[in-house]
């Protein structure tokens, strides 16, 4: 677990730094302009991928593994597999990011890692997913909890979409705009469906646990699950795309139906947390996950808006799209994972975080950062889109200039997020250090007193579980 989350927190900081540098370039295009591998067109995809592949996926996998083991009432066995997989994963991310910065990116949004990065993370994912499936198969509790549907579907879906996209776009590229369609399908399914399934699976476990009320109700959650995977998997082809008309039409219809799972999920969450918000106000994990679910619903509404042809005429190609993506990836998914990590990591390791107060600061910094990033971009995007409708009165260069104040605020938001992410990194590193020290202490005790062998040996085994 530490290997997965520690690396994830590191990439999160990397992503924030890259994103911040990229953002500064709007205000000073000349900033670092002579450095080949720090040009905006490489930095921005690298920052995006560091967030998605560096943080979101490994953190999501770690949380999913822990939840599946918890819900199956089994302990984690075969620890070597996830440790190896986590290291392989982070190696893949490193190679992938380096490749983007030296200009070897594939040119497909959210799929920029070339073979050197995508193959390791694919196999690392397979190892983790198979390991999780084995835990699930060996479960002691036969009845399935709603979170398990969400998590298992997500575990199963990623290898499918990732291999499809890499084979059809990178290994043996298909011709023409079929590339773009597959790219949109992949990005939509990874950014909306995969993160949605993992994030909601976690929320449906943690929220009832924190509030002490059972999930209201299992049937509604099941309904939300099926409708979500039925409709969300078809979203993503933008309305004005230069492809046969049936594709964007189908996407728009699916996006409109997305209201059904959004309502179901809202009802489940609302009825579960109703009346328990104030008593849980001091629980940082609860706040993180609550903010995450709100962001999920809001970004879902934004997604629906962008798929509606009347609205997309204005929002298409504006900053409204990136605002939605950031709200979803950071506001929803990362925040939910933060909440889960702050809850589960001390339990896995058996030690407290060294700086528990920083977690609270992390929450407020993240919340303020996301708000300052997303709100100006969304409003600016609409303003920008409305100005573009008026080509005879407003020159394009002026619309770009008018966007600068909004971008300035969003840069501030990125800065706050960077600070928050640094706090998480410090906390996880501190915890790792503590745990290593404890391990060392136990080991010396074990060497010094052979008589106490049985108990020390047993606790050593527990520690090994923690390492995964």
């Amino acid at each position, binding site marked *: 677990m530490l290997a997965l989350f520690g690396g994830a927190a590191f990439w999160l900081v990397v992503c924030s730094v890259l994103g911040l540098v990229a953002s500064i370039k709007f205000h000073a295009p000349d900033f670092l302009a002579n450095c080949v591998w720090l040009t905006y067109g490489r930095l921005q995809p690298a920052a995006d991928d560091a967030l998605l592949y560096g943080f979101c996926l490994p953190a999501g996998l770690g949380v999913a593994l822990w939840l599946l083991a918890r819900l199956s009432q089994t302990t984690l066995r075969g620890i070597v597999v996830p440790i190896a997989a986590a290291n392989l994963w982070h190696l893949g991310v490193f190679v992938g990011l380096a490749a983007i910065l030296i200009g070897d990116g594939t040119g497909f949004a959210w799929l920029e890692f070339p073979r050197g990065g995508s193959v390791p993370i694919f196999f690392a994912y397979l190892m983790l997913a198979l390991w999780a499936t084995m835990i699930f198969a060996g479960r002691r509790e036969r009845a*399935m909890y709603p979170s398990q549907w969400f998590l*298992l*579907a997500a575990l199963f879906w990623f290898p499918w979409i990732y291999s499809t996209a890499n084979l059809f776009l990178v290994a043996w590229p298909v011709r*023409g705009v079929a590339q773009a369609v597959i790219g949109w399908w992949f990005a939509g399914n990874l950014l909306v469906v995969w993160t949605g399934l993992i994030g909601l699976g976690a929320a449906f476990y943690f929220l009832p646990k924190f509030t002490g009320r059972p999930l209201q109700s299992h049937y509604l959650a099941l309904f939300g699950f099926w409708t979500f995977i039925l409709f969300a998997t078809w979203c993503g082809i933008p309305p004005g795309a230069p492809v046969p008309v049936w594709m964007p039409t189908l996407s728009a219809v699916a996006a409109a139906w997305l209201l059904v799972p959004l309502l179901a999920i809202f009802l489940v969450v609302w009825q579960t947390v109703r009346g328990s918000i104030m008593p849980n106000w001091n629980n940082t994990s609860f706040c993180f996950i609550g903010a995450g679910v709100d962001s999920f619903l809001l970004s879902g509404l934004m997604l629906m808006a962008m798929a509606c042809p009347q609205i997309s005429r204005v929002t298409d190609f504006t900053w409204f799209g990136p605002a939605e993506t950031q709200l979803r990836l950071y506001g929803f998914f990362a925040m939910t994972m933060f909440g889960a990590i702050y809850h589960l990591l001390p339990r896995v390791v058996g030690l407290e975080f060294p700086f528990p107060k920083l977690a609270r600061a992390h929450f407020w910094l993240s919340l303020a950062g996301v708000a300052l990033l997303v709100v100006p971009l969304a409003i600016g995007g609409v303003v920008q889109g409305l100005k573009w409708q008026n080509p005879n009165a407003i020159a394009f260069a002026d619309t770009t200039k008018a966007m600068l104040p909004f971008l300035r605020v969003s840069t501030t938001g990125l800065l706050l997020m960077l600070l928050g992410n640094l706090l998480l990194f410090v906390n996880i590193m501190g915890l790792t250090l503590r745990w290593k020290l404890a391990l060392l202490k136990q080991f010396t005790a074990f060497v010094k007193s052979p008589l106490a062998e049985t108990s020390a040996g047993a606790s050593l085994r527990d520690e090994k579980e923690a390492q995964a």
Partner: protein
Amino acid sequence: MKNGFLVFLASLIALGGSWCGFVLAPVLQLGGGKQTTILNSSGLYPVDRPGMANQGLQVYRANGCAACHTEQVQQSGVACDVVLTGAGKNPEVVTNLISSLKLNGLDKDLADALVDKITAAGGKAEIRIVATGPDIDRGWGRRHSVAEDFLYDDPVQLGNLRIGPDLADVGMRQPDANWQLVHLYAPQSEVKGSAMPPFRYLFRVKKIGSAPSPDALAFPKDFGPPAGYEVVPAPQAQELAVYLLSLHADVPLHNAPFSQSAAVFKP
């Protein structure tokens, strides 16, 4: 739901459905990659870009140009313009007639009626089909982008964010290679206040030798290198410029019609 296998099966069907719809079907429909005929002509479209332009596309990809530029023009509809192609025997009557009429942005029936009216007055008129919409009005293209435009591109760089202008037709807008190169080297020299980062690393500044290099850039006032020096594009910059010049989707197609300009009669 006690059975894990059931969850697996149902997910397989729900998720696999979208795979069939948005992976399999598009590959079957679009992956064949056939050229199409140009409207009112026997010519085929598109033709592959020259080799240097394809290398330029790789430069475009490597530097992430698509992070800021789209390559897809959109249009909101089609309208008819009526143009006078000849004034006939009574030019004054015809000129008076058309000066009182709205000739642009009509629907088909109105345009037909107008042409009949002008013909009755002795003039000659034609209907021209034009695409409409903000992108078209900005001069970013003559019609919306369609699937055919990208047949030979790999990777297809549609883009989804317009921090800078659309480039689907940039080769028509700025056909001058020197302009493209100078703009890449120092964007603010050609577009005042441009937010585009300079791509100086694609160029070399060197001392002018016995004779100036034939590839050296010609700069607008105040932007050139210091005296005695010249800016020479590296091969990558030249490839990128060739690629940019090769971007012009200016051919009318069945699913994206517009009329090529006719000889307009000016009274």
